[in-house]
């Protein structure tokens, strides 16, 4: 592998979260009966005309702002002409020469390494309908509910060098589009799907011929498809065959890619500006208005977490994986106090994440409000709870027991014993009852010390402050 360099560029179709379609008033909701969400415009009756949905433009502006791209003051909708039964007009309205968004970049992270992926462009277009080949006895059914659904096609430069980087980019983009609320990110329903352009070359050589893998709708398929494709291309070249430019499909069942059409039978789409639509004009005032409505972006928030809360870059990135996660974390800090930010972070990324994972739960559905988690954190900070007890409180609150951490501590009698007099007395009792361990410790066996700590903790049923027990025991044994 090391003698080959992999070059990947991604084109992502993000379905925009608008109420209605990009050029008609029909609803965009998923899952309706076939053709019930297709109006006269969507089915391309004679005489109908498209009217641009300004909400879709707002989505494009938001993305442009979020990736530091330039937003065209004037972009043009073009017709991409081809015949297909689920393309009712015989052309798709898209943007060709002048897209709404140009340039920009996205920072990705693979392990501890950060990398910038440059974006080429993002343009608005309409989705096609669906051809249904099953259930029609050798015929094809057409469902035009999806026809006219607004899409933003986001195209990168060929900046990725491995399937891992491609997946990291796709995840970062997925996180960003859901963060800014322009896409629901539902990959199973096709709301976020990727095409991967893959080629290989000897390091330093010009770009190899690429093949485009179409329509990958999960991160796992994205990775599998790219990995298979890379190996296939290397094998081809090593066996002396040149790569032909082609469009390929990934079969998740076999894990293989296979060619759909080659460059020779590529369409001539005969793009030309759509005379039914005026050029899209975006004023600086409109951009400003959209900017005011934009939430704090993940990059900015990560930087703030590092500087304000002293978190590592990795933790900051983890906590800003989704906007809900970040909000939960910050709500927790508000209630727990900024000085406990690190503990909040540990609990959100640790216990909470693990529990969510076990229950396959999104953070929005978590039964434990951030203020409740903050309550636990505060009791850890003031020494009331050990980590072990805190976990017990967490489980109880998760299960809906008690109105807050203090109520659970009270009801279960979980209060950590920090009263030094009480601990002192217990230590004395344990020392008296275990002369052998004392002997061994004095003979240099550190293990014996741990046994004594264990005895003290056992005697308090885990409620003693372990640090305090440790310190006092050592002092006693040292003759204090």
């Amino acid at each position: 592998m090391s003698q080959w360099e992999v070059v990947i560029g991604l084109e992502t179709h993000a379905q925009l979260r608008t109420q209605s379609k990009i050029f008609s008033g029909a609803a965009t909701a998923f899952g309706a009966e076939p053709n019930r969400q297709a109006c006269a415009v969507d089915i391309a009756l004679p005489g109908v005309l498209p009217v641009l949905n300004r909400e879709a433009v707002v989505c494009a502006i938001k993305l442009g702002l979020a990736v530091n791209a330039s937003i065209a003051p004037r972009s043009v909708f073009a017709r991409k002409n081809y015949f297909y039964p689920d393309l009712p007009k015989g052309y798709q309205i898209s943007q060709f020469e002048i897209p709404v968004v140009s340039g920009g970049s996205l920072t990705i992270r693979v392990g501890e390494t950060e990398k910038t992926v440059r974006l080429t462009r993002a343009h608005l277009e309409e989705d096609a309908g669906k051809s249904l080949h099953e259930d029609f006895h050798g015929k094809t059914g057409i469902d035009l509910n999806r026809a006219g659904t607004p899409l933003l096609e986001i195209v990168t430069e060929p900046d990725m060098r491995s399937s891992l980087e491609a997946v990291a980019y796709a995840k970062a983009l997925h996180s960003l589009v859901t963060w800014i609320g322009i896409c629901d990110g539902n990959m199973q329903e096709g709301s976020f799907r990727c095409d991967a352009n893959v080629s290989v070359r000897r390091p330093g050589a010009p770009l190899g011929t690429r093949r485009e893998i179409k329509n990958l709708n999960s991160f796992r398929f994205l990775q599998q498809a790219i990995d298979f494709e890379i190996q296939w291309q290397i094998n081809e070249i090593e066996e002396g065959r040149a790569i032909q430019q082609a469009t390929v499909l990934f079969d998740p069942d076999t894990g293989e890619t296979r060619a759909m059409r080659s460059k020779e039978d590529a369409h001539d789409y005969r793009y030309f500006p759509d005379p039914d639509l005026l050029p899209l004009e975006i004023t600086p005032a409109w951009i400003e208005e959209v900017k005011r409505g934009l939430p704090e972006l993940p990059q900015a928030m990560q930087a703030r977490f590092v500087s304000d809360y002293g978190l590592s870059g990795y933790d900051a990135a983890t906590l800003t994986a989704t906007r809900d996660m970040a909000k939960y974390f910050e709500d927790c800090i508000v209630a727990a106090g900024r000085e406990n930010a690190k503990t909040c972070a540990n609990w959100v990324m640790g216990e909470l994440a693990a529990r969510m994972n076990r229950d396959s739960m999104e953070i929005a559905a978590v039964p434990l409000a951030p203020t409740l988690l903050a309550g636990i954190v505060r009791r850890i900070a003031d020494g009331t709870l050990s980590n072990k007890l805190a976990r017990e409180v967490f489980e109880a609150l998760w299960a809906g027991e008690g109105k807050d951490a203090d109520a659970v501590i009270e009801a279960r009698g979980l209060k950590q014993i920090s009263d030094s007099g009480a601990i002192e007395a217990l230590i004395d009792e344990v020392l008296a009852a275990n002369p052998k361990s004392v002997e061994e410790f004095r003979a240099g066996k550190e293990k014996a010390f741990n046994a004594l700590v264990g005895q003290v903790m056992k005697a308090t049923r885990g409620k003693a402050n372990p640090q305090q027990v440790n310190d006092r025991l050592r002092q006693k044994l040292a003759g204090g």
Partner: protein
Amino acid sequence: MINASLKELSAALAQKKASAVELATLFLERIEKLNPTLNAFVTVDREKTLTMAREADASGKVGASDTPLSGIPLAHKDIFCTEGWRTTCGSKMLSNFVSPYDATVVEKFKAAGMVTLGKLNMDEFAMGSSNETSFFGPVKNPWDTSRVPGGSSGGSAAAVAARLAPAATGTDTGGSIRQPAALCGLTGLKPTYGLVSRYGMIAFASSLDQGGPMAKSAEDCSLLLNAMAGFDPRDSTSLERPTEDYARDLDKPLQGLRIGLPKEFFGEGMDADVRAAVEAALAEYRKLGAATVEVNLPNSGLSVPAYYVIAPAEASSNLSRFDGVRYGHRAADYADLTDMYSKSRAQGFGDEVKRRILIGTYVLSHGYYDAYYLQAQKVRRLIANDFAEAFKSCDVIMGPATPSVAFKFGEKSADPVQMYLSDIYTIAVNLAGLPGMSIPCGFGAGDMPVGLQLIGPWFAEAKMLNVAHRYQRATDWHLRMPAGL
């Protein structure tokens, strides 16, 4: 009554001299009698029409001053979608298509209380200048049935000329209102691009298509335009402007009017009889107080070639939706998807439509786009600039609407280029998006009508209607009617 103006019809309704049902019946009977000869209508539905007429009579709005069109019959070019009526666009492709919705224009006339008389024949998908390309057979010119009525709104022109309808809608992409109006002796107006909604008007060339009225007089056209024009949020190219009363200036004197005469319109190519009628009309205008000045439209010679790149390019894409998948003609037998497409379209479209789809596909193809389409768009700008320059020294431009009077059937249909040249004076107006009119100004060879073309700056409709109306007050060409009908 069949010769009455819209105002007179409205007055008759107001004075209860006639009801909407009686008016509708009168015209339906004429259609029944004369349409078999003229072939102007492709769809007539007596019951639907009479139902609308009864509703108009019951509405209490008939003859009212604020609803001057209520109860008056009107026929639509079959390019406008009409809910519940077959809408064919003159094509086999849509010969069985019944529209589930109304075009904005149709909706507006319904709201004005007008009664739909039927759907009018036209060149297939508005591609033609003689009505010979219609799947439903050619329309005959009521002045001489061996001659064409012009096109593509030939059915509209013949119907109004033969008094089968008091007025009609038309559409004009390269002259399709003005040329048939001229050849049938009518007043036809193509408004400024964007003034009349294109929603529900089956697209031929989106950047050129514009609907407009065809009637007996400028006054009638002004009333019809009042009902037709206006911003439509369903058409992105429709213009948001304050509403106007296009009849407000009809009677203004023409003293001081500056008429521009483009020398390019008065050179070779115009028949002597047409020239004589146009010159006589200009003399009449001078008598009315207007002055004529020579203007230049140096790029007008490029308008036909530019048009025959842009219009087919847009048409080739606009007509892609007629694929046999969802509605319209589908071949009975086919082997696979591609075969279904080719057979359905080969059978559903006529030769002229296919010719333009081929031209359009070619000029948009990779490697040819810059040389043809982009170049044509540049020419288009030059043509618009020429007009802007000309309007610095005149208020309205005049010239012939067509180079000759109505020609005989078959005379030009074998040679597309000859046919295309019959729109030589009208096409530049569409390329520039300007308003244009044709008004009757005399008779030429074979006693066939001659049309005078008026061209105005953008949104000068009220002015143009005034200029036309004052002429029609002084002359009676527009009141002449074909003999024997």
